[in-house]
């Protein structure tokens, strides 16, 4: 028995968020794509043609004929952009791997902790995520500077005699990404490891399997969904990261998020920054679809 009102409310529940996301998430991508085919102009908005029906339909057609792939050609000709894409992917890849190395033991330790303190540990992992990203990155400047706290500590303890140069290098970016995205790595790992049946390991060890090989043969494969989810959650946003390379990486670091930002804010070249965004999105489409499928699967299992 369906209530007569329910058909209308059903529709609204779906339609309102659907329309919102269409207008503010999906349609903007088409605008980005369109503007990436325009040419830079000294006007406001700073691109041409602007595509509109102001000159009638024939006007629109002639505007469409002005669109061109010149910006993309420009991106392939200037090695700067290609290098920025490659180095973003490499930096994000290395950082993701480091985050996995750091995050796995923590997630494992949390999953094996007594059940009574697990919620507290979980909250402690989530808490830094609630504090500002910008602030957490900023905090590292004071630590990594040549006269910063890390060098002071290392010099005072006599481990080094010369201050280490870390700020404005790739190492600083790795530290920044691992630090900022670590909760994203730990949480899926933890939820995969917590569900695991540890009697399997005991069984393996009873049968004479050494702990290390029990880990690689049982624990790690069973935690693989968490590993994949965690790596995607770190890798995808890290590729387009802007704040970390800008504040910790110094001027020589090439990362695509920073390049896009500079094209837009410093050079005011909207069409080229749109083209940079389109290519970045194309590179990320595959990992993003992987992520969505993993999410959908997890949702089905939760049912």
């Amino acid at each position: 028995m369906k209530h007569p009102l329910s058909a209308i409310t059903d529709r609204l529940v779906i339609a309102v968020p659907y329309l919102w996301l269409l207008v503010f998430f999906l349609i903007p991508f088409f605008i980005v794509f369109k503007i990436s085919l325009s040419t830079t102009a000294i006007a406001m908005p700073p691109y041409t043609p602007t595509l509109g029906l102001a000159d009638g339909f024939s006007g629109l057609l002639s505007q469409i004929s002005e669109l061109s792939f010149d910006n993309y050609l420009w991106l392939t000709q200037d090695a700067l952009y290609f290098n920025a894409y490659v180095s973003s992917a490499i930096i994000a890849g290395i950082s993701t791997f480091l985050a996995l190395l750091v995050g796995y033991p923590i997630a494992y330790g949390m999953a094996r902790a007594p059940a009574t303190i697990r919620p507290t540990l979980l909250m402690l992992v989530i808490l830094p995520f609630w504090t500002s990203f910008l602030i957490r990155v900023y905090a590292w400047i004071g630590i990594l500077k040549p006269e910063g706290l890390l060098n002071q500590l290392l010099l005072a303890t006599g481990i080094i005699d010369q201050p280490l140069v870390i700020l404005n290098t790739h190492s600083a970016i790795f530290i920044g990404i691992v630090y900022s995205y670590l909760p994203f790595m730990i949480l899926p790992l933890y939820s995969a490891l917590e569900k695991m049946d540890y009697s399997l390991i005991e069984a393996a060890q009873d049968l004479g399997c050494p702990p290390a090989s029990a880990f690689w043969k049982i624990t790690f494969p069973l935690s693989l969904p968490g590993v994949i989810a965690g790596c995607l959650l770190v890798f995808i946003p890290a590729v387009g990261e802007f704040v970390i390379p800008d504040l910790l990486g110094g001027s020589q670091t090439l990362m695509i998020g920073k390049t896009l930002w500079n094209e837009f804010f410093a050079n005011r070249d909207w069409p080229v920054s749109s083209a940079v965004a389109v290519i970045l999105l194309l590179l990320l489409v595959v990992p993003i679809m992987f992520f969505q499928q993993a999410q959908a699967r997890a949702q089905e299992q939760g049912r």
Partner: protein
Amino acid sequence: MNSSWSRFNITAIVLGFAFLYLPIVLLVIFSFNESKLVTVWGGFSTKWYVSLFNNQGLMDAAWVTIRVGLISATMATVLGTLAALALTRYTRFRGRVLFSGMVFAPLVMPEVITGLSLLLLFVAVGLDRGFFTLTLAHITFSMCFVAVVVQSRLVTFDRSLEEAAMDLGAPPVKTFFQITLPVILPAIISGWMLAFTLSIDDLVISSFTSGPGATTLPMKIYSQVRLGVTPEINAACTILIAIVAVGVIAASLVNKRREVQRLRDEQAAQRG
């Protein structure tokens, strides 16, 4: 069985949490530094907090940030909860794949792309950039986080409660407000808080979508950080951290109390 909670596990956790918390702790400590240098301790002082409150630019930015945060978090919670309901309750409707894609993709979408695309939308439709566009942008990216938080609660929700209410003649809307909403309320509240913190923390999307007169605190902090690290910024950061920490701890205490109450009620019901 506690042999599994081995020395290795404890070491990993202690080192991990030290890594997560030490930078924030150091930042807070150095906000009370007498010296102008943020890395050399010169004695305890609260003078940076005083100069912070006398900094009109920062105070204006803080006010903009809080207003955008409150409005966008509230709107995002409504839209995100609807999106979560749509995803869990309606397994078949036209364009569901696209819809779930649009809910999950913003979670990982690089902020520069979201920011740029929203800005180009606002320019294309001729909206002046400012407080309004900033709020629209914040609603859009934070509603997806709310949707995920609420959805994870909804999938474990016992639908027989709703069916019982409907069988007894309650209309769907009434069922939602009297049965469903109270059960998923903790998730909705944490969704709101997440949306609020995401909003007050955001730098990249705000920089693209904001205009003159609507500078947020992160934008202000960012422009000052580029000029150099000062204890005043540390003080501003410490206040932001304190607000968030108090909010999160208060929410988790409320949740815990609710949980204890629920257990007690269940026990009472079983005895009765």
